[in-house]
């Protein structure tokens, strides 16, 4: 159908559209025939992902070649293949030395008015990175899942959804225009919903799925609005053109660009779990662990970051990033807040997946922060490294739950002391944790350090401190989690696992006696004794489908950082991707600063400090010895309040539940009530009379501090005015209607009289 092209870009680069197409087709195949396949359709999914991976690898290889040997100008003429399949190459190809033009292959989709929409692929360094990443991690996670969700009631559907997700993500990554981008984005949202709610029989899970869906949907509105604004501004949907025009933006319509950037960033906030819409992400851990590791840590949630990176000129110009004298911008502020609050929240979680979820949120904050402070390469590279080690961590958590802790994710109740029993998992976990902490010479170090350095270098001093404090907190909470999971005494489910295996073959009985089959929860429906054969060197660890992906990811968690290690003078990754921002003639992204150990030292010291303090506290609080610290939060009211505050996630959820959701349920009345009480009457304690929890919570945490002071001053005047207008505010819609129409009529009458 698509004619072979002998033109220079290379087969893989031109046919990258196959990468999402294969899983998309596989999705339908799984849906249609999956149940009849011997392995329930998982083989189709894995095969499709492998095929995608191969093509993605080929694409990456050819891209590397393309970068290393840039083609001469003029070779990329517009070529039109059969079936209206046009290949256009940017005119600015190879304009300046290393500027490598992206390879864009498109097919006309449809025309509406002046809108011309095509579908196809847009290959550049950024896209290649993400393609490879997504295809690779999806493959591993699917292999992992064959064991993890074995015997599940909706096994086939699981693989169908996860394959569709991959297709969606790859579609988005490849998107040459905003419409295809939105398409992929929405497919991901849908799959996220399906997969979080995979075990929808439990209310909590379906609620989490709904929450994720709706929260992200709030952001998606921003995406649509932002796209519309960009279209209005530039008259095109093509990402390349948008970037180009934005980078060279000189119009007086700056406000529009700002508006578009903010709207798009709202989408990123929703998708990438940034403050204040981050609450869905931890709840999304209700999904199966492979889902968490694929969608909610390494791939889907970085879509927001990817969007910013993809349309970086828009944000860069729209939000005045790196303009001298601007030490704050929206992206950096949101990213910074997210880094800190998420890290704070990670301290108080008992659920290992929640810890990792908040860690993910925090790391996503880092990426945003990086983009906000102009460290484009650092941020993109952090996407890359983070994906490996965070995926590894999640899969470790899954492995522990699957094998070690009897399908519980509760670190305090069901884990501890697992390091000897699960050596593979333990080693991978430690490696990944160190990468996450940013320990030198692990992958996380290189990427994170670049962000931190850039923040300082680009004069975002506040964010520099935010970043290093965040790094320290990361070290601390990860230490706590590691300690709770692998050290100390085995508790609960882990105890069964650890001690149960000592007695020769009573294992199964012990399991059955202690928990019965029901205790397994949903994660799996077979007892651990039925696992397929583990690898010889890991007699007690999970089976090979789980450990092999773990090992691969663990290795990458160390070595993926060496693609771009400024500390060692390697800038290869930067070299490969830097053209992706577009032909940035008017836009000046400062190059990343030169690495120096001195600059990295404060961060590293803080990380070390965080590690040590956390270790000590963990030992003291969770260790076997009794110490004064145990139960401290119960005894000390201040610490207790802080702990409670954190445990309740800063009451953000309560705020959403009670203000936003209830406002929808009792639509006008409740909101108007709230507004009236506060704005008009200014009598805050009247909230209490309503007896609504909303009132109380808002009163406690928002009003007392912020609103009250301001309002009290104006209270008297407002009260007087309110009293005078009281009869008008009767609360009757009809009366409002009468007033409205009456006023309209009078107004019209006046106009008529004036005009005639």
């Amino acid at each position, binding site marked *: 159908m698509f004619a072979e092209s002998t033109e220079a870009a290379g087969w893989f680069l031109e046919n990258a559209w196959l990468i999402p197409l294969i899983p998309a087709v596989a999705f339908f195949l799984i849906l249609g025939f999956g149940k009849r396949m011997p392995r329930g359709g998982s083989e189709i999914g894995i095969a499709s992902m492998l095929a995608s991976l191969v093509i993605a690898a080929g694409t990456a290889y050819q891209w590397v070649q393309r970068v290393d040997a840039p083609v001469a100008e003029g070779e990329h003429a517009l070529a039109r293949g059969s079936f209206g399949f046009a290949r256009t190459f940017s005119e600015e190809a190879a304009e300046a030395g290393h500027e490598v033009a992206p390879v864009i292959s498109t097919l006309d989709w449809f025309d509406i008015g002046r809108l011309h929409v095509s579908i196809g692929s847009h290959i550049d360094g950024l896209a290649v990175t993400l393609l490879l990443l997504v295809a690779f991690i999806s493959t591993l996670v699917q292999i992992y899942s064959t064991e993890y969700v074995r015997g599940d009631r909706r096994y086939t559907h699981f693989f169908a959804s996860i394959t569709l997700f991959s297709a969606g993500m790859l579609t988005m990554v490849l998107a040459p225009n905003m419409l295809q981008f939105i398409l992929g984005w929405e497919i991901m949202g849908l799959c996220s919903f399906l997969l979080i709610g995979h075990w929808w029989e439990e209310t909590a899970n379906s609620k989490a799925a709904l929450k994720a869906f709706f929260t992200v949907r709030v952001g998606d509105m921003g995406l649509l609005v932002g796209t519309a604004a960009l279209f209005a501004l530039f008259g095109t949907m093509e990402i390349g053109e948008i970037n180009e025009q934005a980078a060279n933006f000189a119009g007086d319509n700056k406000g529009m660009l700002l508006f578009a950037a903010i709207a798009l960033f709202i989408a990123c906030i929703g998708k990438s779990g940034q403050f204040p819409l981050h609450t869905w992400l931890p709840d999304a851990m209700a999904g199966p662990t492979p889902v968490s590791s694929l969608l909610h840590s390494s791939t889907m949630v970085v879509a927001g970051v990817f969007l910013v990176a993809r349309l970086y000129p828009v944000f860069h110009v729209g939000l005045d990033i790196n303009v001298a004298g601007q030490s704050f911008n929206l992206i950096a502020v949101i990213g910074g807040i997210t880094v800190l609050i998420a890290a704070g929240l990670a301290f108080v979680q008992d659920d290992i997946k929640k810890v990792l979820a908040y860690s993910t949120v925090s790391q996503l904050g880092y990426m945003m922060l990086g983009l906000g402070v102009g460290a484009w390469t650092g941020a993109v590279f952090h996407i890359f490294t983070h994906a490996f080690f965070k995926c590894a961590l999640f899969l470790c958590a899954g492995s522990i739950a699957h094998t070690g802790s009897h399908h519980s994710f509760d670190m305090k109740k069901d884990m501890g002391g697992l390091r000897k029993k699960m050596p593979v998992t333990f080693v991978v976990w430690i490696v990944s944790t160190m990468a996450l902490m940013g320990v030198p010479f692990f992958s996380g170090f290189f990427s994170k350090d670049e962000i931190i350095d850039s923040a300082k270098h680009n004069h975002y001093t506040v964010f520099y401190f935010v970043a290093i404090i965040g790094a320290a907190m990361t070290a601390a909470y990860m230490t706590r989690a590691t300690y709770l999971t692998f050290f100390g005494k085995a508790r609960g489910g882990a105890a069964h696992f650890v001690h149960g295996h000592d007695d020769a073959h009573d294992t199964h009985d012990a399991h059955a006696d202690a928990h019965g089959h029901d205790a397994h929860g949903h994660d799996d429906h077979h007892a651990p004794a039925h696992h397929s054969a583990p690898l010889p060197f890991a007699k007690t660890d999970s089976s090979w489908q789980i450990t092999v992906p773990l090992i691969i990811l663990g290795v990458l968690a160390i070595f993926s950082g060496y693609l771009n290690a400024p500390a060692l003078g390697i800038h290869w990754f930067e070299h490969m991707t830097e053209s992706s921002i577009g032909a940035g003639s008017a836009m000046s992204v400062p190059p990343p600063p030169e690495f120096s150990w001195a600059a990295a030292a404060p961060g590293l010291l803080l990380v070390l400090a965080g590690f040590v303090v956390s270790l000590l506290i963990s030992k003291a609080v969770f260790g076997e010895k009794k110490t004064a610290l145990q139960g401290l939060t119960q005894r000390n009211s201040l610490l207790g309040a802080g702990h409670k505050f954190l445990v309740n996630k800063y009451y953000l959820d309560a705020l959403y539940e009670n203000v936003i959701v209830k406002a929808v349920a009792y*639509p*006008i009345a409740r909101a*108007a*009530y709230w507004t*009236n009480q506060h704005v008009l009457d200014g009598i805050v304690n009247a909230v209490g009379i309503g007896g609504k929890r909303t009132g109380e919570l808002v009163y406690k945490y928002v009003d007392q501090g912020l609103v009250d002071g301001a309002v009290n001053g104006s209270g008297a005047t407002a009260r007087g005015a309110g009293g005078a207008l009281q009869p008008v*505010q009767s*609360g*009757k819609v*009809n009366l409002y209607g009468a007033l409205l*129409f009456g006023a309209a009529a009078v107004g019209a009458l006046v106009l008529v009289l004036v005009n005639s």
Partner: protein
Amino acid sequence: MLVNNFLILGAVLFSIGVYGVIARKNAVLVLMSIELILNSVNINLLAFDRINGTQDGAVFALYIIAIAAAEVGVGLAMVLLIFRNRKTIALDDLSEMKG
């Protein structure tokens, strides 16, 4: 035919609709009055179309019809919810909007 035939008809319906919105207490009836208003607007749109000899008014009439459908769906769902919670759909019983 005079254009004013249609326009005045629209005005009459509009006024009646306004009267309904003001005078009715039952939420469903208020919704119906709003439908009256929307219909009168549609008649006007189409009549204006015929003055200009274009089709744009028809397009917007179609859009208004679609919006009205959406509005009724949500409106009735709200009414149902209010009825469920309060066993009444009389609007002035919903006095929480009172100042």
